[in-house]
């Protein structure tokens, strides 16, 4: 594919609001996970990655009907790192019909509906158990499209817009769709990424599948016990590359998509779908496995997911390429994971480091990959006893592959690289 530039991006997760906080937490090898006290959830023994101060966000008055946790989180995200200004500048360059909005989410504003069901009107009880309250707005909160509608409305855009909802690969797949729209000439720029927020459906749902870890999740650990659910807003402005690129400009080099065709809630045991997605991304980028310096794994920390992804990575890359999952730090942000981890990958490329996985104590000996449990950082090269003999790429990656594999078997891999 023709490379595209990530001209501006921002992420907010339990690591903090915006890129500086995210980067500081990653470089300090910290987790943002904490015991679950979300909303009325007091009966689940699990850790979550909750974004601070989401409920303190108030949406602009004209967009008040969009008010729900997911859009508050989106609004919080749009305020960081000058992202909104960058979008406004892009609209001025390209026009309001030439900027698309393609965002991922899995549960949209379902928390709003869950709460509305508790507030059903006892005065008009029927077989449904009573009407939903008058202040419940389906289209602007519950509907899966709500967050893209919110962002498109806020920027007064008139171009194509869509939400991709393929569970945990949603906000990776938006890069592929946006790249196709740009290649087809339908748009010149796209706001991509994802927003997914905590709700009862996912907390009790993953609990029903016995996939919630009682402790902070430990990806690729021999004793991993499942996921820790997180939430995040990740936004990226994607455009054709500028004429004179800075050396640390980050490009989208390839995307690869596949399906497991195996099971609704378990991955293909051999990781075949995962392998096909990674191979397709390499092919689209015109690269081979040896060109990849770091892999940001999907790494959810369930026993079966990590085993399947590990097999897929080992088959394509052997044990030579450093890789890690950042979900020990951020939790599994579900529909926002692909976008959040693309941004973490972009930070790794720009800042010259590879984030070691957090919480992982004893690597699973059955998974033969080069899993990093400590950061590799160009800033530490000179103080590393082996630093002088180690190539720069071992600290500062030039090309990164990021995996996002969804429930229901939809897979997407992205390859990002530095301009130089």
């Amino acid at each position, binding site marked *: 594919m023709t490379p595209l530039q990530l001209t501006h991006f921002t992420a907010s997760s339990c690591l903090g609001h915006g890129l500086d906080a995210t980067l500081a937490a990653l470089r300090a090898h910290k987790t943002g996970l904490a015991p679950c006290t979300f909303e009325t959830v007091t009966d689940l023994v699990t850790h979550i990655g909750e974004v601070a101060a989401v409920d303190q966000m108030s949406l602009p008055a004209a967009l008040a009907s969009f008010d729900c946790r997911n859009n508050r989180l989106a609004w919080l995200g749009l305020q960081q790192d000058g992202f909104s200004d960058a979008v406004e500048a892009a609209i001025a360059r390209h026009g309001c019909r030439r900027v698309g909005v393609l965002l991922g989410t*899995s549960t949209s504003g*379902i928390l709003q*509906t*869950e709460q509305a*069901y*508790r507030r059903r009107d006892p005065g008009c009880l029927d*077989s*449904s*158990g009573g*009407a*939903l309250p008058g202040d419940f707005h*389906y289209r602007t909160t*519950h*509907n*899966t*499209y709500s967050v893209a*509608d919110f962002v498109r409305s806020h920027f007064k855009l*008139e171009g*194509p*817009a*869509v*939400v*991709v*909802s*393929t*569970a945990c690969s949603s906000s990776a797949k938006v890069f592929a*769709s946006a790249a*196709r*729209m740009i*290649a*087809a*000439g*339908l748009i*010149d720029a796209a706001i991509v990424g994802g927003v997914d927020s905590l709700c*009862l*459906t996912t907390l*009790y*749902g993953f609990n*029903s*599948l016995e996939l919630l870890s009682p402790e902070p999740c430990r990806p690729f650990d021999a004793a991993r016990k499942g996921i820790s659910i997180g939430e995040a807003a990740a936004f990226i402005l994607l455009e*054709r590359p500028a004429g004179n690129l800075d050396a640390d400009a980050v490009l989208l080099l390839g995307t*690869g*998509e*596949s*399906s*497991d*065709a*195996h*099971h*609704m*809630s378990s991955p293909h045991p051999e990781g*075949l*779908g995962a392998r096909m997605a990674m*191979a*397709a991304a390499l*092919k689209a980028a015109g690269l081979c496995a040896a060109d990849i310096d770091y892999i940001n794994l999907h790494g959810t920390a369930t026993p079966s997911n990590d085993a399947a992804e590990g097999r897929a990575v080992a088959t394509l890359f052997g044990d030579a390429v450093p890789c890690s999952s950042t979900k020990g730090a951020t939790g599994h942000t579900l529909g926002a994971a692909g976008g959040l981890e693309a941004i973490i990958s972009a930070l790794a490329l720009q800042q010259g480091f590879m984030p070691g996985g957090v919480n992982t104590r004893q690597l699973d000996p059955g998974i033969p990959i080069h899993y990093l449990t400590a950061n590799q950082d160009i800033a530490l090269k000179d103080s590393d006893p082996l630093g002088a003999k180690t190539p720069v790429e071992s600290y500062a990656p030039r090309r990164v592959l990021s995996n996002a594999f*969804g*429930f*229901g078997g*939809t897979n997407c891999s992205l390859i990002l690289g530095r301009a130089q």
Partner: protein
Amino acid sequence: MKLLIRNELAVNVGRASARQIGLKADLQSGIKYTGSITAYLDGIGLLGPGLDNWLAARPILAGAAAYESRPLVVAAPQSLPPAERRRTGLVVRIALAVAQQAIAAGQLDAKQLATVFSSSGADNDNCDALCKVLATEDRHISPTRFHNSVHNAPAGYWGIASGAMTPATVLCAHDGSFGAGLLEALTQVTVEGWGTLLIAYDMPYPEPLHAKRPLPAAFGIALALMPERSAHSLARIELSLVDTAPDALADPALEALRLAIPAARGLPLLQAVAREEACRVVLDYLEPLRLAVAVELCP
């Protein structure tokens, strides 16, 4: 390994077709390409109240037979293993039924086609059931209810039924969901050179959500969209973004369906194919954009 090779082929075909339509040159010279995207329509699937399948609905849409609405009955897909079949709700049944119709009509191999699923909602009965349980003190929900709650559940079941390991995406654009799906599918065909199956579907909510989002009936349309013309091609379609008003359907009852159900916003395109006349139809999308589809029949 065979699957990997196929994937590589798909990418190569994509590059070749981008060259053929001259996109690459445009991109390199920085010329703004205004974007028209095209595909051959090789198979249609249709299911809705009074519309039993594409062949039965064709004379109705052409105006040669009267439209009579009646309740829709959809069987569980036989292509799924019994355990999965038992777990499917109406939305999965609709999506898989129209997908299979389109594949059969085009005599296509499902394993070779990418899929674009698009729906305003998902399994809306399941959504209501989950919200009801979560509003009680005992929030224990069933794992099947949870995995059926994801917007991409129909795509997951389709993968299991068809064995297709090809790319699958699942979209939502509220009332613009059909248009968003058609745009994504045609973009895949044009840019990647994939054969892509578009599956657009909706189902009603039970109360109390029905009062907030009144969808009157379940409905599905599937279109098999191919990069090259074949013996089964019904039409060549070319899509562009416009801001003229969407076409209405002549029959008032069908027009009511089009207006009430997002997936039914694709009916004017099916009507054009049923009438066997080259024409241009305008489909609803997102304010203020619409999709103009030029339909050129393949004799």
